[in-house]
């Protein structure tokens, strides 16, 4: 039944947004994590979203339309990538993490960008939760058929 797949679709949306919120939390938490070498410094992480196709899941749910033209089955996180942009080197000889030249490396986390990302993710999460709620109301309505 296609109303049931609304739950699945909204569920994938919520889980993808949760992953996004997780990476934001990780990035902000590590925004000031300094390190003495470029290799060991934390890099900002970003999830990569991709459309999930119904055929990949298998099974057709009595659709009104042809198999090739399904509604899709939501969104998936196809991976988490590390930001490869340049790290910030600061001259802080007093820092215990400073290297022999007195420099420490700061992560390439843009806190403002992360905050905007967080708001966007939480709004998208809310929207998906609302979608689920409306689908629930529609299903409950169907259950009263003939009463």
């Amino acid at each position, binding site marked *: 039944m296609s109303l049931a*797949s609304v739950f699945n*679709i*909204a569920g994938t*949306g919520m889980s*993808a947004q949760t992953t996004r919120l997780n990476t934001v939390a990780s990035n902000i938490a590590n925004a000031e994590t300094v390190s003495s070498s470029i290799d060991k410094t934390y890099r900002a992480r970003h999830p990569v*979203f991709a459309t999930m196709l119904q055929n990949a899941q298998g099974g057709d749910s009595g659709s*009104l339309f042809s198999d090739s033209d399904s*509604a899709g089955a939501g969104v998936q996180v196809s991976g988490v990538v590390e930001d490869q942009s340049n790290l910030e080197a600061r001259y802080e000889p007093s820092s215990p993490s400073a290297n022999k030249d007195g420099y420490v490396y700061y992560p390439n986390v843009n806190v403002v960008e992360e905050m905007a990302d967080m708001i966007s993710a939480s709004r*998208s999460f809310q929207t998906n939760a609302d979608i689920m709620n409306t689908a629930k109301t*529609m299903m409950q309505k169907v259950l009263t058929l003939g009463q």
Partner: protein
Amino acid sequence: MSISFDKALGISEQALKFRAQRAEVLANNIANADTPNFKARDLDFSTVLKEQSAKTSGSGFEIERTNDRHIDADTMAVADPALMYRISTQPSLDQNTVDSQIEQSNYAQNSVDFQASFTLLNSKFKGLISALRGD
């Protein structure tokens, strides 16, 4: 005498199915609101209605013949014209065409339409029940 549910319920059942299907498509759009390169899609009610009524009347797909020498192609399959891509109002950096507000309002409207179709279907069932009871 037998009761044919298909005849008794008419298009209401298909309409309800359509609303559920459209809810799925719109939910998919909203779930993919942040997916790069995703193109928002929607179902067109009139196209589906035409297709469904063609299916029930058994005529199927036909091409218009304006000349005697044209070959008719009534067995040709329709490549599902109902699911279409939305034309975006604003460009976006990641080529995503989902506008959350439009999708949400469409979803809300679809949900109300679903309830309306349901009420119609329910009243048909109620009519059948009262006819069977006869009181």
